[in-house]
């Protein structure tokens, strides 16, 4: 018995070595693990938790630089017949305290929850959370059912209603899938800040790693009082607001 086991192991090892020489590893007949690029690049790490702190005191109600920067970076430039179907990865909202009339302005987008309801309800596994806390939609397996849009308490997700030809190469978008703020994952993976944060000239947005004691956002959320929107839902959002 042990003989046959050894033979089988030996065979697998030998075939793996042979295949590796050709640039891929056979893990089963017809299934190959292509090693070409596996060693390259940094992978999203679970030690990191990306977050965003928004200071609504600094955010000006007549400014929408963040929204424009998001549209440019992510190619959200299509003309839509029905304005209600326009994709909104980020939007500016004004809050009014009814008793005092005090207004706040702030950008609202995907809150990148640690326990995202959109991921809970997704029937295909298309809605997922990356190891570093960024919540994304895998368009390859999204069937466009829009359960996640209903589940999201922040109305953060949009649906692609029309065929597009104006996508940016690094931000694939299309008809029939749900989409939302990605924290500009294509920039974050290269060590850049999201487009909205870079565009904010009022210094109202701080992006960084909530787990890294040396990061600005880590220090800041320990200095000032910040809130999670709908903290009662205990979703542990990655986007925090100061001054609301």
């Amino acid at each position, binding site marked *: 018995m042990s003989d046959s086991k050894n033979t089988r192991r030996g065979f697998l090892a030998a075939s793996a070595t042979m295949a590796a020489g050709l640039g891929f590893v056979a893990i089963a007949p017809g299934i190959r693990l292509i090693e070409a690029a596996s060693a390259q690049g940094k992978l999203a790490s679970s030690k990191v938790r990306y977050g965003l702190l928004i200071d609504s005191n600094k955010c000006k109600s007549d400014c929408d630089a963040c929204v*424009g920067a998001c549209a440019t970076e992510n190619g959200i430039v299509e003309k839509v017949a029905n304005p209600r179907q326009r994709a909104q990865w980020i939007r500016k909202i004004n809050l009014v305290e009814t008793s005092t009339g005090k207004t706040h302005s702030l950008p609202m987008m995907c809150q990148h929850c640690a326990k995202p309801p959109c991921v809970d309800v997704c029937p295909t596994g298309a809605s997922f959370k990356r190891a570093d806390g960024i919540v994304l939609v*895998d368009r390859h397996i999204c069937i466009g059912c829009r359960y996640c849009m209903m589940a999201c308490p922040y109305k953060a997700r949009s649906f692609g209603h029309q065929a597009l030809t104006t996508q940016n190469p690094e931000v694939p978008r299309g008809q029939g899938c749900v989409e939302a703020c990605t924290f500009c994952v294509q920039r974050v993976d290269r060590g850049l800040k999201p487009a909205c944060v870079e565009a904010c000239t009022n210094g109202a947005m701080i992006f960084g790693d909530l787990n890294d004691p040396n990061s600005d956002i880590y220090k800041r959320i320990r200095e000032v009082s910040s809130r999670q929107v709908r903290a009662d839902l205990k979703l542990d959002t990655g986007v925090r607001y100061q001054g609301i």
Partner: protein
Amino acid sequence: MFKRVLAVMLFSIAALAQPAVADAGRVPKPTPTIETPGQCVAPVEEMRRNHMEMLKHQRNRTMRMGERDTKVSLNGCIQCHASKINGSVLGSRDNFCEACHAYAAVKLDCWDCHQPKANYKATASAPPTMGLKP
């Protein structure tokens, strides 16, 4: 007798001519324009047979794990193989992706979401951006 021989001869000629007629009616083999030949990430034979597996494997790693700037990448294909005429891998039977996929009748879903043009940058004016009415 002569008539019968003639009939057989005619029949055989018709039968011999059949494949030639069928060949002439066949769809011509694809002739994609290769803009940068000889520099691909793997040998031509392997690319022809396995490019879809390579792309599918890498797309999941990039999407789910954030692996960027890899050897295999769809944008890499486009950078090299986009036509110098219309800047795209699509458009006609000469364009790199469309040539073979049209011949093999394999539908390309990639371009429903991905940008088929090299160095494309969305520039149209951004839509009105202020928020929804409360």
